[in-house]
């Protein structure tokens, strides 16, 4: 299974608490997703 397929349905919230479905991020244009090690 593609990474995109696995990630697309996952819903996270943004820094203000709004929900974001990951798949929506790249629905119209490519997106760079940077995963941090940790905050700070």
């Amino acid at each position: 299974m593609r990474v995109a397929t696995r990630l697309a349905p996952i819903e996270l919230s943004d820094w203000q608490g709004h929900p974001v479905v990951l798949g929506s991020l790249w629905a119209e244009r490519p997106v760079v997703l940077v995963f941090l090690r940790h905050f700070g």
Partner: protein
Amino acid sequence: MVVGNGSQHFAASFREDFSLDAPLLVDPELRAYRAAGLRRGRVEALSPRLALNAVRAFRGGARQGAVHGDPWQLGGTLVFRPDGTLGFRHISREAGDHPDIDDVLAALEPGAPAVDESEEPDPRLAWLGRTLGTLLDPTVVLSFDRTGFAIHSLGFDPDDLEVDLGGKRCLITGANSGIGYESALALADLGAEIVLLCRSSERGEEAAERIRQQTGNPRVAVERLDVSDLSAVAALAPRLATRPVDVLIHNAGVLPDERQESPDGIELTWATHVAGPHLLTRGLRSALEKSPDARVVWVSSGGMYARRLNLADLDWRERDYDGVMAYAETKRAQVVLAELWAERLAGTSVAVNSMHPGWADTPSVRTSIPTFHRLTRSLLRTPAQGADTVVWLAASEAARALRGCFVFDREPRRTHWLPWTEESTQERAQLWRQCEDWADPFASG
């Protein structure tokens, strides 16, 4: 788009602190991290590279605040495209391992190739394996240290070292201090004839005198040798080879702060840990084969687990020099080289093995990595405990059958904990060729 794994509260302040304009998502349950196949684990997170980056940043005035989120989680960078293909993927293997920004930008260009995702195992399985590894990792600390020795030594057979080495001849490099000294002392105590091969005649002579006095064994000699100096090795080997050699212990080691070269222009850790010992083994091969039961022991390091065999930039011309990394990479090379020698000497009387002493309180550790020493002093093994496996490999009947093993606390151990440290057959062959290329100009007969 940035994803972090702390809580929302910390995400907001992180965004402010770092003047981050990009949208920030939070994934405290690490669901997206897991699905993306990102890595996690103590060994990875606490890499030598991270420690050095931290030291450098600290010297540069940077101060890291409290860490929020999972401290063992590693990051990564992926480019997703509307058609569901992956334009770029960089999975951080250790902290401080970041992708090249140009590669990321190139993946955003229209028509850029997609990452091949066929035949990939489900990363969630790998995740499970790594999580288990993380749970087991504490046993590394409780294994390399003195607790480990206490536990492992419960299984030692005390009769293994109830041997008389009278008539045996043992050569030990770097034998005037630390593990080399303790190995020499123990072997002299078992009655062997000892030759200490030391850079300094004076320090060697002092060590020899202490060994003679402590053991009452007068047959302890010193030969001056800087094992990184191939001409010196080539000059001494024939003199050492006039009589059979029963034990050869490659113990001498260096951990330089800055890139240094041997007299032959080889980077110093490669010269000391690999090129010199290889030439010495070659020069003593026939003398070893004249012994009915010869042992060659390579004293490596547990640090080698962190690195893979790396022959791409032996000279450290393409990377900023990093002594700890150079040390670990050449310690890995020693383990591979011991296996290669064991293959070549199969069917002879010569058993070749490598070992690691665990974390011992030796002068090298004290001076080369003082912070590590200060933090871990109470846990460190004594040099004699570190030398136990060296002596066991050199002297015991039980070790006679071991060939090409990597031994720790008298037990053969796996040589890889991390899948990406595994070298290919070609790289192994390349290491042998490289060693032969170094040695050939100095070969006699």
